[in-house]
């Protein structure tokens, strides 16, 4: 009978930048089970968002994640506009799409580089990140910042894209064509990359449907889910683009989908820039008050659909702000993808999801030995009261009366 070993990865480990904890149960070299423990990134974002005004909340949600740092603001603004029935000017919609697609380019390039790093192929990392700098430059030209662009506001955008900047942006985009072709060829022809990624970490179409997977991960398994197409927002209803899908669902397909999406992104930005020349007008609707109501904002972030829900009670702050990020569903697919693979492949499979834990961690779920248990807000409050009364007993102190006493 074989003996099972548990290999802990994390929370501080060289694989990924964020703290997270994987427990790999291995039998010999084969992974038989994986446990994922999160909670190192929970900052209480939803609660804090309720203490900010609508304008501040947009800056605040930007700081949920540094990689999708325009996806959260767009979704948040759309939720606020939905709640307050604000009409956004067309020029602002195009600018939102341009920033969103530039972000997708930088995020996919970032992931492609890191994928090379996970495989121990650091040349890929260095080359890809060298060209990512061009995209970051482009964002700096438009927004003034390398990251955290601060471009969105309820009702529009903060800064306009000037007519004289358009040739510069087009120059950067045209310059990207050659490296993108190079990456596409490298991935499709390099024997090392092929050997490490083909038939590794397969997720079938049914797996994706079972886990409700979204984004490039789902599209690599043949599920054509893309909020840009299914529920057009920003300028996506006004431009022409394809939803890229592949069928196999292994790591290779996930790389492939992301590279092909970058070509689409370049094409979307070019169309938006063309439209921008013909669409003068204001960039901001300047809503004075946000009416009471509920609003939902979707946005296709680089990792999949991000949803923001906002309830406005007519004041200048959200009464409730709920966020669901794509990695929340995508990280769970690891429980299927890693099983049966060798431990050396586990790194790239765990990385292929493009996980973003800082986006994900909005709730606390605690695993206990006799099964799984989810703690509700009431449970958490009760636990807190329990702890307070225990401490009081230990210290012999008497404070204000708790509802529990």
């Amino acid at each position: 009978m074989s003996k099972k070993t548990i290999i802990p990865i994390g929370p501080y480990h060289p694989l990924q930048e964020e703290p997270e904890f994987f427990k790999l149960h291995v039998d010999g070299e084969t992974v038989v089970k994986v446990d994922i423990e999160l909670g190192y990134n929970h900052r209480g974002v939803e609660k804090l968002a309720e203490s900010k005004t609508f304008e501040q909340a947009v800056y605040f949600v930007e700081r949920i994640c540094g990689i999708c740092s325009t996806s959260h603001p767009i979704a948040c603004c759309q939720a606020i506009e939905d709640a307050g029935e604000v009409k956004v000017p067309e020029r602002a919609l195009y600018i939102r799409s341009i920033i969103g697609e530039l972000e997708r380019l930088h995020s996919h390039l970032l992931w492609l580089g890191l994928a090379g790093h996970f495989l121990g192929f650091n040349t890929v990392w260095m080359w890809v990140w060298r060209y990512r700098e061009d995209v970051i430059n482009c964002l700096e030209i438009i927004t003034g910042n390398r990251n955290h662009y601060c471009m969105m506001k309820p009702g529009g955008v903060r800064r306009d894209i000037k007519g004289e900047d358009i040739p510069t942006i087009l120059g950067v985009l045209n310059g990207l064509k050659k490296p993108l072709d190079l990456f596409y060829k490298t991935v499709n022809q390099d024997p090392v990359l092929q050997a490490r990624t083909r038939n590794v970490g397969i997720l079938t179409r049914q797996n994706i449907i079972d886990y409700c997977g979204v984004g490039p991960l789902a599209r690599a398994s043949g599920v054509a889910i893309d909020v840009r197409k299914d529920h057009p927002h920003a300028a996506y209803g006004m431009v022409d683009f394809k939803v890229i899908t592949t069928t196999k669902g292994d790591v290779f397909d996930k790389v492939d989908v992301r590279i092909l999406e970058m070509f689409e992104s370049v094409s979307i930005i070019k169309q938006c820039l063309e439209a921008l020349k013909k669409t003068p007008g204001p960039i901001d609707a300047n809503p004075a008050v946000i009416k009471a109501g509920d609003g939902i904002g979707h946005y296709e972030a680089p990792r999949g659909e991000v949803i923001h829900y906002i309830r406005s009670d007519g004041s200048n702050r959200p009464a409730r702000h709920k966020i669901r990020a794509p990695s929340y569903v995508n990280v769970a697919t690891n429980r299927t993808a890693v099983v049966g693979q060798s431990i050396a492949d586990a790194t790239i499979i765990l990385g292929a999801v493009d996980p973003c834990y800082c986006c994900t961690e909005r709730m606390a779920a605690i695993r206990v030995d006799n099964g799984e248990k989810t703690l509700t807000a009431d449970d958490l409050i009760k636990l807190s009261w329990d702890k307070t009364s225990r401490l009081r007993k230990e210290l012999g102190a008497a404070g204000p009366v708790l509802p529990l006493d």
Partner: protein
Amino acid sequence: MSFATSILTKSLNVFHCAGSPCNNCDIELLDTLTPRYDLERFGITLVGSIRHADVIMLSGVFNTKALIRAKRVYEQAPKPILVIALGNCACTGNIFIESYNLDAPVGKHIPVDILVPGCPPKPEAMIAAVAKLIAKLKGK
């Protein structure tokens, strides 16, 4: 200048310790290693284990769960070690300071040698911080 300081200020091995970050400082830190900034020219590399580190880069606000682990990482580090707090979150707690799940800034719990403000700091700022730190250690 002591022997340890003289050794410490040559090719720095950096261990990156992120606690509840938004990833941006972390990405910018990796950016300094890639071809445009290329800190590896000066022998500055990221290491996978705290046992090999000369410098710990702290980024993020460190919530209660991550802080326990980060302190353990600091205790395991070979001394003397330099600690850099990277970004507004690690310096001050930034926009998250009122959160129920953290006790910011991280400098209260781990002795920090140098603060690099910015959200996120530009790669140039990080390079300047390392240069200043080395100059300070050498007593210049």
